[in-house]
Structure formats: structure tokens, C-alpha cells
């Protein structure tokens, strides 16, 4: 590529990345401004007197500890549940032949395409009957009920060589032992992709938690922040500080595993 063309492309990319990163920059910078500076028109691009106090202030105004804790508990339970369930099911579909295998797998795939918004009303009534409204389990259980993990695991396990499993069986290992000692240790990359995907969507979830969680003590971060900012919308430094706090965990996960993000999404095509 000619040097001039290369420079031009890099310049265009540079401008584009400034535009794309600016909203995040603006969130952080605004969270660092004092109330007085934030009221200035036009706004200052860099805070003249950066202050950290908005973070503890926002943190203490609403029970953010509680929200973060709730989000973490729900995300942890969801991730653990999804990993166990879809590894088991993926192995079952990949390595056994049984009556109804194709139909059941197709069923799992079809449910993957049904948005939660469609089933929200009957699910709500179901949770009410199970006395699970306003309980973290009401958020976790539907999140465990998708076909995506099964699909991912089935594809991955099908690509593994079968010799090792067969050798273990000949040596007299039972099916559970083959699964735990031979299959599971080989699943590293698939587990990592599924873990990241599940964590991110759990942390981001808003619609369903907003419906089933009704007391502040049980809110997750997105629900807590959305309703908190409704009350404190006049104090924009607080809102931006709270937003920054809620973004930190996912940004850290992204920074640590960005390659896997991009690859995982390209493979599965799902967010």
C-alpha cells in the first residue's frame, strides 16, 4: 500500500476512534466535575478542578453496594448454571445416539430465537405462582433456559477426537466418569467463550429484572441505576459516576479477554 494512502487511512481510523471513544471519555470526565463546573455552558472539555468525591457520594446516596452484590450473585449463579447445564446437554447431543435426538436438538435451537420479551407475561404469572417474584431466582431461572450454550457445547464436543473417551470406556470407566475426567478437561476454550458471553448478558439484563424485581433491596445494577437516576436526574455528576461504576466490571472483563470476545462473537454471531 502506498505511504500516502496508508497515512490517510490511519488518520480516518484515528478520527473514528475519537468519535467512538468520546461518549465514554465524557462519562468519566463529567463524573469528575464539581456541580458548579458541570453547570457551565459551554461545558469544559477537561475538568479544571477534578474531584473524586462524586464517586463515594453517588455510591452512598443509593444502596449501590446492594445493587452490585445482587448483580454479582445473579451473574455468578447464571454463569455456573449455564456452564453445567449446557456442557451436560452438549455432550449428550454430541456423543450419544438416542430416540428423539434430532427433534429435541431442533427444539433447543428454536427456543434460542424466541426473545424473552414475547414470553415475559406468562413467565411473570408463572413466577408469581411459584412465589418467586422479587427473588433473584426469578431472574436466574429463565436465563438458564436457552439453547445457545447447548448448541455451542455440542459443536465444540463434536469436534473433539473420540478415541480418548472410547479408551476410558474400554478401561471400564462409567459414563459420568468419562464425562468428568475425559471430556470436561478438554473444554477450556468453549467454556471461556460461554462464560464471557453469559456474564456479559447477565450484567446487561434490564427488561426482565425490571419486571420481576420490585424492592430496592433486590434491584440489580441496571435496574437500580435506571430508577436511581430518575430520582437524582438533576445531579448529573452522580448519574455519570454511577454509570462509570456499573461499567467498570464489564470493561475489565473486556480488557482481559478482548481477543476471545471478538472471536467468540464472530463464531456464534450472538451478542
Amino acid at each position, binding site marked *: 500500500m502506498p505511504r500516502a494512502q*496508508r497515512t490517510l*487511512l*490511519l488518520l480516518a481510523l484515528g478520527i473514528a*476512534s475519537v468519535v*467512538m*471513544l468520546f*461518549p*465514554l471519555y*465524557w462519562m468519566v470526565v463529567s463524573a469528575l466535575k464539581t456541580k458548579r463546573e458541570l453547570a457551565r*455552558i*459551554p*461545558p469544559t472539555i477537561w475538568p479544571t478542578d477534578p474531584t473524586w468525591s462524586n464517586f463515594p457520594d453517588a455510591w452512598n446516596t443509593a444502596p449501590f453496594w446492594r445493587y452490585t452484590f445482587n448483580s454479582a450473585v445473579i451473574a455468578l449463579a447464571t454463569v455456573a448454571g449455564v456452564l453445567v*447445564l*449446557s456442557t451436560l*446437554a452438549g455432550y*449428550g447431543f454430541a456423543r*450419544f*445416539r*438416542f430416540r428423539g435426538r434430532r427433534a*429435541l436438538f431442533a*427444539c*433447543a435451537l428454536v*427456543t434460542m*430465537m*424466541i*426473545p424473552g*420479551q*414475547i*414470553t*415475559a*407475561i*406468562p413467565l411473570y*404469572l*408463572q413466577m408469581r405462582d411459584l412465589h418467586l417474584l422479587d427473588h433473584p431466582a426469578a431472574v436466574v*431461572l*429463565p436465563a*438458564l*433456559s436457552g*439453547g445457545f450454550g*447447548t448448541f455451542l457445547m455440542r459443536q465444540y464436543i463434536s469436534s473433539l477426537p473420540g*478415541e480418548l*473417551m472410547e479408551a476410558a470406556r474400554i478401561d471400564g470407566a462409567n459414563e459420568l466418569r468419562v464425562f468428568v475426567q475425559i471430556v470436561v478437561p478438554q473444554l477450556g476454550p468453549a467454556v471461556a467463550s460461554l462464560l464471557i458471553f453469559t456474564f456479559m448478558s447477565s450484567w*446487561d439484563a*434490564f427488561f426482565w429484572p*425490571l*419486571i420481576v424485581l420490585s424492592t430496592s433491596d433486590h434491584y440489580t*445494577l*441496571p435496574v437500580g*441505576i435506571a430508577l436511581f437516576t430518575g430520582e437524582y436526574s438533576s445531579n*448529573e455528576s452522580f448519574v455519570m459516576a454511577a*454509570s462509570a461504576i456499573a*461499567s467498570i466490571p*464489564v*470493561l475489565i*472483563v*473486556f480488557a482481559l479477554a478482548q481477543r476471545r*470476545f*471478538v472471536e467468540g462473537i*464472530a463464531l456464534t454471531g450472538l*451478542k
Partner: protein
Amino acid sequence: MQQASTAGTAVQRLTWRRMRPKTVIPYLFVGPQLLLILIFVVRPLFEVARLSFHRWILSLGGNATYAGLQNYRELLQDELFRKALTNTAIYVLVSVPASILVGFLFALTLNQPLGRATVFFRSAFYVPVVVPSVVVALIWQFMLNARGGIVNAGLARVGLPEPDWFTNPHYAMLGVILASVWQQAGFMMVLYLAGLQGIPRVFHEAAAVDGANGLQRLIGITIPLLTPTTLFVCVVGVINGFKVFDQVYVMTGGGPANGTTTIVQYLFTQAFEFFDVGRGAAAAMVLLGILGLLTAVLMLIGGKEVEY
């Protein structure tokens, strides 16, 4: 090599044969996941269809009573629902092509041999995808603030008019769309990058030898060969677009003057604020119908084009 793969098939056959068809073991592996899907997806799916033919106001107590098509009739007569349909259609028609186009341009540029800098740019373009959507909505609401918001400050600086973003329905919709495009472009980019990497280099080399310039190669080779990717990106984009809720709920609450009320927002209000279960279920069924139809149409178009 030949021998190894034959041995592999033999073992495979052995593995298959070992499975007696009557054994319960496979069901123990797939059972737990399928049971959850049955309880929390399949059953509610049938249930929402059933409820849409019933009259049931949850807050009034009592039980669901059969009402035939009444909910659907009311739905179609409801001015607000028609507005929600139009708003959602506008949102999808603008935000989906826009994010696809931006994502495509990002991918095309990043696919050039620019060295290690591309890793940084790819991350920069992708970061918005991982930010929680409630946070995305709050950031854009703050940036688009009519008084002292950074966007209007920028517009004023270059001498453009400063719109009242959240009191004018058209601008409010534009604001929601801006936030969505910012968040989704990186996602589209990644899918296109994967698609671009699947195009064999020889095609471009051959065309270059024949004297085709960059633009001709883009139109003649790259875009046609990316058809499967484009189709997939469209399906995912349209489905996600019709589900839009978070941004609207946080940024505008559906206002002003219901100018940004979407289908899911309508469903949410009917079912979980007015507790009109039947009406909400009917709205959900309409959404399901729209999604099914659009996916089928896109698949059909794609099926024809891919043969190309």
C-alpha cells in the same frame, strides 16, 4: 493420514454401536437443560398465545375469561399501538442500516494491512458493545441535553441550530437511534471482519491482474461475496431492533407525545403498569408474528442471492 482417519471412523462406529438404543443415560445428560427450556420457554410460548384470546385485568383479581379476538381488535383500534408500530418500524429502518453501514466501513478499513494499530482500533470500535445498555442510554441522554449538553455545544460552535432533543418527538427518536448506532456498529463490524477474512485472497489478486481498481473490486467481489454475512447481520439487527426497550425506557420513557413509544414499551406498559394481561399478550403475539415474517422474508431473499 488416510489410515489414521479410517481408524477414527472405526472408533466412532464402535462408539455409536456401544449405545444401546434403550439406555436412559443420554436422557440424563440432555434432560436437565431440556426440562428448563420446556418450563421457562416452551410453556410460556403456548401460554402467551392462549392469554391473548382472554380478558384478564390482573389488578382486578378474578380469572381469565375467554374473549375471542377482542384483544386483537382493541389493539388494532388503539391509536397508541399503531403509533408504537410505526415508531418501531422507523427505528429499525434507520438504526439497522446505519449501524450495518458504519460497521461495514469499520471492517473494510480494518481489513487493510495497517499493522498492529488495527488491534487498538478494533477494540476502540468494539468497546461500546460491552457497555451495559442502561449506561449507554444515560450517557447519550446526558450528552444530548438541550441546555449545556456537549452535542449542542458542538453544534453551536460550528453554527448549526441546537435542537431541543427531548421535547421534540422527531429529535427524541433521532437521539435514541444515535445511541443505538453507537452501541451496535462494533458488533456489526466484528461479523463483517469475520466475513471479509473468509474471502480468498486470490479473487482480489486475479481481479487486480485484470486491471480492476479498488472500487471495482469492492463492488464486483467483496460485496457480493459478503452476501451471507450481510443477510445474517440483517436478521440479527432486525430482531434486536424490534425488541428495542432499554434505551427508550431510560432516555425518553416513550415520550414526548408518545413519539418514541415502541412495541415492547407498549407491551410493558399494558401488562406491567395497567396489568392488562390479555392486551399485553396480544401485543406480544403481534411482535412474534412480525419477527417470524421478517426472518422468513430475509431468509428467502438471502436463499436466492447466495446461489449467485
